[in-house]
């Protein structure tokens, strides 16, 4: 639009020059983030090259991580990341769904609604280091007490503890997406269900949730993306054991917590590069999951 106005000419050369300078500046603003992203990927690849060469494809399938023998394999950490994140996701989705149904269908206005909304926003604002600290001093003793009660080794720290903590950390995020998706359900559809004699819960189950299903699924993916990269809180309560186990009560390690713990201790170039390779892997996994989530959500928003 503006292009045609300018190209009619008759304007001062200075104005035209500042015009094109401004456009160049905007163009720079447009590409800077993409360039940054490509640069991040390139730096990760280049910096992990010694490890990519030394570790080869066995990096993804091997289970040993031993700096002394220079054997670096990512599987235990990929596994640890996935199991903590998925478990957290299950817990968070149940809680978030209840919250978003409550805030999206039952209490949309009023004191209680704004109270709940403020609570969720506050939860989202709490730094992860504070979550970790609270987890260490409150959740770990609780889990340890439970472990003693049911007779397993009472570590207190471990996969289960991290998952519970992670669940509460991603909860505000999932809940706000859930509420947004439920708000996209057309009012006539809901009113139609109600006028046919459905109770409110039947309307939620049979109209709202099925309609918002794909959007909620997208939200689950985005929350997963969050959980995968969460570092500090998990590092503080997971116990940092480089083992691969399905026992939820035992300590474990995630990709992010491994990097946080060992990066400043990495003495040999291959060790350091292997940790950067883990970061590269984490970057790729979380980016793919995030993009899937975004695509699903955009389709939902576009359809509604």
């Amino acid at each position, binding site marked *: 639009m503006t292009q045609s106005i300018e190209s009619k000419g008759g304007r001062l050369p200075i104005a035209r020059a500042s*015009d094109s300078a401004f456009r160049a500046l905007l163009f720079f603003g*447009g590409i*800077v983030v993409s360039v940054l992203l490509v640069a991040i990927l390139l730096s990760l690849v280049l910096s992990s090259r010694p490890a990519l060469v030394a570790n080869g494809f066995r990096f993804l399938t091997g289970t040993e991580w031993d700096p002394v023998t220079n054997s670096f394999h990512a599987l235990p950490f990929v596994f640890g990341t996935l199991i903590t994140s998925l478990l957290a996701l299950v817990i968070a989705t149940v809680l978030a769904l209840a919250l978003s149904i409550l805030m999206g269908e039952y209490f949309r206005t009023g004191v209680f609604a704004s109270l709940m909304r403020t609570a969720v926003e506050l939860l989202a*604002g709490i730094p*992860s280091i504070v979550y970790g600290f609270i987890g260490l001093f409150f959740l770990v003793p609780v889990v340890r007490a439970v472990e003693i009660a049911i007779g397993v080794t009472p570590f207190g720290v471990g996969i289960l503890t991290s998952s519970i903590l992670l669940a*509460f950390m991603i909860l505000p995020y999932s809940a706000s997406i859930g509420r947004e998706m439920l708000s996209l359900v057309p*009012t006539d559809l809901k009113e139609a269900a*109600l006028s046919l004699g459905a109770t409110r819960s039947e309307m939620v189950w049979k109209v709202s949730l099925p309609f918002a299903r794909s959007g909620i699924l997208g939200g689950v993916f985005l929350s997963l993306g969050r959980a995968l*990269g969460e570092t500090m809180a998990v590092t503080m309560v997971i116990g940092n054991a480089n083992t691969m186990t399905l026992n939820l009560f035992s300590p474990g390690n995630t990709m992010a917590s491994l990097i946080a713990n060992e990066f400043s201790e990495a003495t040999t170039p291959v060790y350091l590069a292997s940790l950067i390779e883990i970061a590269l892997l984490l970057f790729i996994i979380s980016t793919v999951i995030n993009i899937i989530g975004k695509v699903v959500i955009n389709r939902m928003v576009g359809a509604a």
Partner: protein
Amino acid sequence: MRPQMTPRGVRASDPALRGRLRADKAFMGGMLAISMIAVLPLVLILLFIIIRGASSINWQFLTELPKPMGEAGGGISNAIVGTVILIIVASVISMPLGILSGIFLSESGKSGLGRVTRLSVETLMGVPSIVIGIVAYVWVVRPMGHFSALSGGVALAMIMLPVITLSTEETLLLIPMSLREAALALGVSYPRTVLKVILPAGASGVITGALLGVARAAGETAPLLFTSFGSPYMVLDILKPMASLPQTIYFYATSPYPAWQTLAWGASFVLLVLVLVLNLLTKLVTSRWKTQF
């Protein structure tokens, strides 16, 4: 819309209907109960931090440097100053870039490059902060040969950038076409239209984005682990390692000494107050100073 299912006082005579209504009530009760579990941690965290943290806050705590192991007392003044400096460095880097790319997105977000940019911004938003930390290490720490507040600022800037961009874009998109057309019709050049008409009209969104970005960056720990690194001294030189609140909490919280853990509670209190105040400020700016058309 809050449809009232059955008017109060009306009794359903049909047992099947009564069952459905009971299920409806139970469903709502269940949702309410689960939601309470969901917000319980907020109450817990606030209680814990206020009870444990506020009691260790005093003038000395806010103004003194940490004491060596074994000596009582000591404060976190260096961490408070460090966090402020880190945020300033990060803001100086990220705000111009974020606002610029936000303007670009609102001006030509539907073009091919616009779509690529939006995807990049959203992807950058999702990059784990520990990965950002590693990138800042590779870009700044490695060439310099030592840890520095500058590298921490670079890491935090990468975290703030997408937040600022998206908030700027979102607000600028709300500004009506007529405003822009009026300016252009008066013969105002395109750059002046954007800078003097559109941007000021969307100032609240730009400020909100900046505040949100700062609030997010202030609490980040992972990207600072191998960049600003931390320091027990009062450091004002951004080319040197510098303490920060989140990292101080991490260091003290994971230590086995109760005296240090007390310091961590105090630092958590300060950090939490900082972040919550920033969030409240954001809400205030959006509600009081909202662009309305």
